[in-house]
């Protein structure tokens, strides 16, 4: 069975600066050849023997993206038994992501969750005893990808895709209804309307692609949730963090009024703060939305910062949440160190059995926040906290789907321009509809038939 060519980041994405992009499949070598340039610009990877390493650059047109070492492993002597190319990158997370992007633009597609392992197994590379483990890998990766492709997708993006998909379906249903029942529904003069509509949808999709380039489609970085009771000073901690010139990377108000998120870089570590109540809102998340909601938020986070007011006694809610947090990576901030202490670092450590680092800070006086910063960095570099690298591939997958939708819509416009009959339009409209569906996790199913019957009075 011939397999298409897939690519993914195959090392954990950390800030260590080194990472590997793995490409596998029949076209693996030729895909990388298209973007690889050796020092003297003369070397062709396709002419090199198997199991060799080559120094050079990954290019996007004339622009150097990264200085790399490329390893070639020809079929069948590779992990997947297909042709495999591994690109060792040195330029950190950003360039790793750009290299992946470039590989995908030049003919590979983003790998499905666990797909390298799946191929290795199906091609007989991994033996029987490991089969169960393979299934587990696929499942674990898939679960994460599902979570990230759905929950990581920004609410506003989700809504836009649903909206454009709806428009596509309307046009499709009209064309198809007319084809099925030409004596009842006429397509005369329809191309003009479809052209306008398609151009508009295309513009929306292109805007989404641009925002994908800026990382606005999904939330990347360490998902960090800051929890705390109202008087704990959660908001001042947030404000202090943001005001301290942490270089706000994004700040996008979502469509639901009270969702606000901010990402900022902490010496190269991307923190993504998410909060349904709005990170600047002063209301108390714990009391207002309840302990359960706090748990739910914490569940989705890579890192939880729990803010406690050191000038009061911790109550039952505090206990319950901290108890729950023992399952998670968390930091307890004992805020208001400028006030006479009622609760001390020792009190909390006793309560939690030293499960978390506890820091005394004063958000008001901007004291101790450097400790928090240091603590986060330590946890990150020690590997305690990491954000799952699947997220980059998820982003790449979604972007690729958007680009496919864009291509399909351009084909629709081309078909209209070339005066093709109407039934040709629906081929590419349907492809665009399916591609957009992948992003929000919806398949095509009976959508079209249902829409036709809902909107048009069909048949005899």
């Amino acid at each position, binding site marked *: 069975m011939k397999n298409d060519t897939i690519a993914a980041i195959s090392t954990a994405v950390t800030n260590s600066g080194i990472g590997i992009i793995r490409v596998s499949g029949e076209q693996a070598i030729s895909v990388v050849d298209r973007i690889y340039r050796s020092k003297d610009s003369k070397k062709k990877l396709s002419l090199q023997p198997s199991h060799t390493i080559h120094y050079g650059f990954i290019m996007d047109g004339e622009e150097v993206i990264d200085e790399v070492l490329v390893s070639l492993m020809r079929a069948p002597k590779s992990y997947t038994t297909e042709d495999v190319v591994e690109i060792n990158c040195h330029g950190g997370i950003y360039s790793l992501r750009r290299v992946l992007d470039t590989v995908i633009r030049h003919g590979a597609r983003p790998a499905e969750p666990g797909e390298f392992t799946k191929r290795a197994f199906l091609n007989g590379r991994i033996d029987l005893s490991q*089969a*169960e483990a393979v299934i587990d890998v696929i499942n674990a990766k898939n679960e994460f990808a599902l979570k990230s492709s759905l929950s990581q997708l920004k609410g506003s993006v989700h809504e836009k895709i649903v909206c454009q998909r709806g428009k596509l379906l309307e046009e*499709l249903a009209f064309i198809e209804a007319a084809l099925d029942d030409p004596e009842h529904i006429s397509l005369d003069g329809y191309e003009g309307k479809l052209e306008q509509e398609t151009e508009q949808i295309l513009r929306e999709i292109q805007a989404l692609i641009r925002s994908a380039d800026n990382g606005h489609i999904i939330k990347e970085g360490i998902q960090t949730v800051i929890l705390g009771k109202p008087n704990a000073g959660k908001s001042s901690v947030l404000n202090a963090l943001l005001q301290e010139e942490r270089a706000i990377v994004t700040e996008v108000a979502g469509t639901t009024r009270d969702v606000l998120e901010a990402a900022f870089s902490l010496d190269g570590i991307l923190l993504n703060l998410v909060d349904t109540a709005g990170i600047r809102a002063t209301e108390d998340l714990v009391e207002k939305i309840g302990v359960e909601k706090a748990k739910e938020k914490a569940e989705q986070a890579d890192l939880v910062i729990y803010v406690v007011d050191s000038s009061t006694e911790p109550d039952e809610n505090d206990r319950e949440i901290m108890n729950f947090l023992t399952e998670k990576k968390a930091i307890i901030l004992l805020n208001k160190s400028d006030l006479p202490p009622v609760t001390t670092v020792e009190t909390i450590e006793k309560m939690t059995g030293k499960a978390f680092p506890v820091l005394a800070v004063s958000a008001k006086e901007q004291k101790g926040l450097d400790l928090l910063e240091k603590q986060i960095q330590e946890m990150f570099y020690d590997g305690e906290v990491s954000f799952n690298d699947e997220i980059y591939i998820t982003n790449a997958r979604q972007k690729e789907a958007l680009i496919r939708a864009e291509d399909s819509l351009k084909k629709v416009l081309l078909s209209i321009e070339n005066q093709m009959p109407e*039934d*040709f339009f629906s*081929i590419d409209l349907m492809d665009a509809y399916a591609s957009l569906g992948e992003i929000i996790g919806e398949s095509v199913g009976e959508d079209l038939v249902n829409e036709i019957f809902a909107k048009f009075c069909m048949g005899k």
Partner: protein
Amino acid sequence: MNRVEEYVDVVVVGAGHAGCEAALACARLGMETLMFTVSVDSIALMPCNPNIGGSSKGHLVREVDALGGEMGKNIDRTFIQSKMLNISKGPAVHSLRAQADKSNYSRSMRRVLEQTDHLQIKQMEVTELIVDKQILTGVKTLSGAFYHCKAAILCTGTYLKARCIYGDVSMHTGPNGLQAADYLTDSLVKNGVKMYRFKTGTPARIAKKSIDFSKMEEQKGDETIVPFSFTTDPESIQKEQVSCWLTYTNEKTHEIIRENLDRSPLFSGVIEGTGPRYCPSIEDKVVRFSDKPKHQVFIEPEGIHTDEMYIDGMSSSLPEDVQVRMYRSVPGLENAQIVRNAYAIEYDCIDARQLKLSLEFKTISGLFSAGQFNGSSGYEEAAAQGLIAGINAARKIQKKEPFILDRSEAYIGVLIDDLVTKENLEPYRMMTSRAEYRLLLRQDNADIRLTKKGHEIGLIDDCRYQKLLRKEREIEQEVSRLEKTYIGAGKNIQDFLEAHGSIGLRSSATFAELIRRPELSYEILAEIDPGRPVLSKEVADQVNILIKYDGYLQRQLRQVEQFRKLEKKEIPDFVNYDDVPSLRIEARQKLKLYQPSSIGQASRIAGVSPADISVLLVYLEKERQRKKYE
């Protein structure tokens, strides 16, 4: 011995469009075939619309014909008007539709059946299936006779526990007042078959002499008639055609309907069955599309020897008095004399997910089914299934692999895959939008797609097969010639192009490149192509389509290649889904219920995710390796 006891190879229950194709296929493949019908006079009856074909249904008829079925030939013998629909659109959606002379259609099919060797017709109701250890061994009739058989094909149409209804009138009959079949359902249920109850309907028939056609628009047939069957010589069927007529409902019609909705059995709940959305009754249309001020009504002749006209677009189950007023509110029908009332009909059918792709029951070996019994609607859908069920019943007896068409090969493949893989909660109708690869599944190339297969099966004779090979060769050679032949940018060429609204050539180009221009075609270029061989219209059409739409066709072919990869991965019968680790619960339940035959089919089941498919693939590979070691 006090009762009849006989032995045959195949029993076919029902003589409608599915039953006829099933019985003919079996008999022509050498099986001793016995066909039961509740009335010999109702063989190949068209109890609803008086036409064959139409959008996507015309494709089915072509495919049935290409495989050696009878429907196409029979309508070519008996049509009274013919029309190619969607002619202004792409070749993939051109669709042939012919008005039939209903009684001639029925009579002609009956003659074919009667003249076929190995085929017996019997007027009798089958009441019971004889099943021994999940294997069908025979059937029992109302008269108490036993017919032992190796396979049976159920094509009971709308007859099982049928009930015809309008207003408060409810009759326990099949269509057209024919006797219903009341016993077979019980026997099926006893054998573990899950039944559904569906509903459909038909409009009134009105006497022609009572209609004022001057208030209607005439709808004529095509000037040049294209036959359905690839074996029919087009010259032989160019004939005088009858017209249909178009009129419209109006606000008054809708008012009459709205005022009487409470008397409709559909709205009052008397009718339990699920009706089709694509073929709504007029009261349904008025309710669901209340913003439409009028609906089209086509008046179509039921034949040339009858005065009855079919009122297409106004099926109904409203009470008789409402029907009279409703029809008479339509321009041209003011004095309408209703010959037969409109009615809704309810009937038992099955959840077709109990069938394999061969149309054999998964749990009863040797029992096949086809047509409306499987939850489809339409004469053409029925015929297509009947043919496949007939072929597969014969092959089962001959111990051959089942014959299965996939979604990339034929509309028939789409139809059957949809029926047995998806949950259908209403009568299923074929639509072109259901065919993913419709550019490849055109009605014009059904012979090229399928006639070779028909020959292998044994339903296509050598002569027809050789003809097909010749046609294929001619197409191939001509396409290749046009791709390779360059014409220069000489003055005569530039003038020719200008005259056809096409921009001039800067350098030489191939004929193929010119054919791809929207304003040009193979036919138009004849003038500047002196080296062109003499070819039939059918071959010329293929050449034009293959060149003109080449880019799109290649794309679909690539998609098909992807699709086939999964389709080819068979799921063996031994899979116990409870043993497959990590399947999600929903997927596990669905897979157990459907027992898909391939990974491709499994992936089309709602509720089975791509991750489940991955898990299943890995499991199957593991099992394969384990078996290899053992």
